[in-house]
């Protein structure tokens, strides 16, 4: 407003009393003028209202035919409860890793055994136990191999990375889960080889393991066997095991008989036993001179 040079009075408003009985009683008269501050050459008023407070015209009677107070209120509609009877998460998920590739081998030491890991991409991850001189396959459910890449021993800790995400893992043999949600699958095989055509009966097969250490409250331990060198396997024979029950007996009875080439026993579970100490098969008509034991205990 400092730059205003002119202002003109363009409107004068005079509010007159509309009734004259009793005469209007002016209690305040305000004159408001717009003016330019400073040294304006002219002051031009564009609006000059005169506001006059006055008494209303008197009435002989006041008649009210309707009087309403409109109240904004919620009333009964405020008594509303939101209710949710189902809530869930749907996920669109895939499995596997697109274009898995081979990567550098690495080693780790666990329980005094040094394992040499060969990540072979689509062929999976294989590990060689330099103590027992046996191979085993390492895999994470959903992946071709192990979701534990570029492993390295960091002092006594075994550290690796996720195949898909920027996540570092530490290998913990006592954890029954991979990635905190995949039950670790354990599969172990052992066999009894024979050249004999005589039928060898299997009265029972006994497993000695940490049966009470489980991921969930219970799980199943499955036994299958193959009498044709692993081409086909029997249906699974299942023993349910319970968490915390450390004295559970894992015994499969009356498993039929086999002859040459022998029998392969396969034990598997998901999120189950952490360690298998040994397995014993009670055999009938078994002659050590004609046979040789391969893996496991005969």
């Amino acid at each position, binding site marked *: 407003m400092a730059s205003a040079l002119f202002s003109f009075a363009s409107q004068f408003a005079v509010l007159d009393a509309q009734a004259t009985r009793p005469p209007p009683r002016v209690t305040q008269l305000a004159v408001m003028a717009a003016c330019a501050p400073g040294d304006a050459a002219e002051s031009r008023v564009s609006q000059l209202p005169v506001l006059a407070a006055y008494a209303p015209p008197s009435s002989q009677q006041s008649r009210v035919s309707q009087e309403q107070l409109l*109240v904004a209120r919620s009333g009964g509609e*405020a008594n509303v409860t939101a209710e949710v009877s189902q809530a869930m998460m749907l*996920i669109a998920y895939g*499995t*596997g*890793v*697109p274009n898995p590739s081979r990567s550098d081998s690495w080693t780790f030491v666990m329980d005094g055994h040094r394992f040499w890991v060969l990540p072979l991409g689509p062929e999976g991850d294989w590990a060689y136990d330099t103590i027992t001189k046996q191979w085993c396959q390492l895999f994470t459910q959903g992946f071709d191999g192990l979701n534990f890449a570029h492993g390295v021993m960091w002092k006594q800790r075994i550290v690796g990375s996720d195949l898909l995400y920027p996540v570092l893992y530490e290998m913990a043999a006592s954890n029954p889960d991979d990635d905190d*949600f995949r039950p670790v699958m354990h599969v172990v095989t052992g066999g009894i080889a024979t050249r004999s055509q005589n039928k060898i009966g299997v009265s029972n097969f006994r497993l000695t393991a940490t049966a009470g250490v489980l991921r969930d409250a219970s799980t199943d331990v499955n036994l299958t066997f193959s009498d044709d060198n692993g081409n086909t396997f029997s249906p699974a024979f299942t023993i349910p095991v319970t968490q915390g029950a450390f004295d559970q007996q894992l015994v499969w009875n009356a498993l039929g008989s086999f002859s040459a080439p022998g029998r392969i026993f396969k034990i598997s579970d998901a999120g189950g036993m952490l360690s298998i100490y040994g397995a014993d098969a009670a055999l009938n008509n078994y002659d050590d001179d004609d046979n040789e034991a391969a893996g496991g205990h005969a």
Partner: protein
Amino acid sequence: MTALFMDGFDHYGTGDAGAATMLNGAWAQVQTHGGFGPAGPGAPAWGARTGALALAGTSFQGSYRYVLPAPRSHIFLSCGFAVAGLPTANFMNQICSFRDLNNVVMANLWVQSTGVITLADINNNVLSQTQGPVVVSDNWHFIEMEFDQGAGAFVLRIDDAQAANTPAINAAGLHFGANPVAQLTVLDLTVQQFGPTGTWMDDLFIRDSNGTVNNGFLGDRRIATLLADADTATAGWTPRFYQKIGGGLLNCTAPNACVSAATSASLNVGSGDFTIESFVRFQSLPGGANKAVIFGKWDETVNQRSYQFFLGSQALNSGSLCFQTSTDGSPSTVAQPIVYPFAPELDRWYHMAVVRTAGELLLFVDGQQLGLPIADGRTYFAGAAPMGLAGQVETVAGAVANTTLAGWFDETRFTVGFARYTANFTPTAVPFPRGAAADPQWADVALLCGYESLVQDESGFTRALTALHGAAQQTVNDGAAVGTWSTIGKAVPDDNTFVEAPLLPASNILTLAAQPAANDTVTVGGTAYTFKAALAGANQVLIDATLQQTLQNLFNAINAGPGVGTKYGTGTTANANVTAEQLPAGQMEVTANVAGTAGNAIASTTSLTNGGGWATATLTGGVDIPGPSDFKVQRPPPLTTIISAVQINQRAFKSDAGLCSVQSALVGPLGTVATATAHPLTVSPSYHGDIFEQDPDTAASITPATLINGRIRLSRTV
């Protein structure tokens, strides 16, 4: 946002009922074939991926129709697809159909009699098709397609888990019309097929080409449903468990379900004290002119009426709890000493009791006395009617239609000769005592049912109970010991149990023990109302001929109802802060106009010469919208490596008319909250799905860790 919708068909239930439930969500048309055969979510005989969408049977037509959130010109769709048998002719079995906003066909995708997949126009003119058979019966096939209306292109991949092979169809220069895709139908059997047939779909995932992720071919994506399975410390919502006392209930939700026992002198109360009590949970309220009997011994057909406690419908008695008696079994002596308005919330437990003590009847709900004591010294008829629990049971007619209570009962006890409650009390949280050692009045207990494992009388009378029309013991699988999540972590929808977020107004009850004296006052909501013998000004209330009429004048003054100038003073305006409701027998209730705890500050006072007053000095019971509740969800499938998107589904509804919206959110492992759109609710249950494609914490891809360590959040916004 690129992902538009996903469905695994695992959470609707199965069969026709499951198909019907689909209509509560994104599906606009489903198939429930009634007598024609099974439809809806199911599983093929050779095994499902998980629950699957099915059209299975031997002879019917139909399809399922999904409406996109908004039309899209360029979409990607993937699914699992299976047929029990290839169609006997071409153009009979449609995998999907692309439709515009007017439901006009843009193109149809068919599996033909040879196993070839064909894209055709509405007149079955072939637009493109696979080089040879690609569909084999009794096998799941993974199908992924790109439909580009704008570019006139269509690409189809079959069983290409990594989207790395040459597409089975790669067509361009097609004309799909001028409009974008607005609707899809799937599993369309357009001609009745006879013989072994059936078609299934699963793992439906629809995307558009917007955004930076999921906007192209992805390869095989499965849809897993991760139900809520654990509570967290963020727990603002209240669970409505089935579980009440112990682990068993009486379920009377089947039509006309109720329980009876043979008539017995031990069930007669004469003129003495008694206590009828039970926990009751209403699934629905009586309609028409019906009643929902809680307990009684009442036979109208042969005039053997004794006593009966029931909730009436609006048409019957304005929705009131009623206790009626007869002294000779005939209608001429029927009296209803208790008629008290009561509108129970559905699916909520109430402890209800009718007590007679020293010639006065008392009504209690949740341990709070409703109304004033009613003088009642009558001798109830010692008739021959059977006992009816949850319904009126008569000697000849059995369970009487339109008298049964649709709901649940727990801890039902009938004590004859003793009034267990004479003042407000806290209902039991444990089973009623069993045996004389635990209950001094054990000899008076004429009926006691806990429904833990059977519908049986556990009182000393061990009377034989008969469950009628499907009334049955129900063992619950929820409760506080299980967790709040058990009310929502359900694979099959059940709207009788849920979590709730209320917004309740405060209220108070005024009792006038006798007619007020002139110049006595009642003040509420900032206005003082003065009782007068003659009116002379605003906020004055006429002392009328009776107490109840005077209360009605006050009620009308508060609400600015009828009677201005005659029953209350001219110039009185409606109370801006409260609304009054009439109650029987010398009482009136006011409810705050503002919802929530703000109403709890509204003062209520009286100056009454002849006794009476407000129940409390301020209104009480106002409840604000609670904070959110977070729930953990089940672990993803063990084979999960990649998570393309997450859809949080909630099935929600509101208890009554009025504004009410619910919002879902994905909470990241570090606590960052990604909120979705708030969804206004209706009184009918409906599904709302919200898509998330980023980890809230990192704004990067969602990983298994996002789900394992994250949680879903429910919030009420208004």
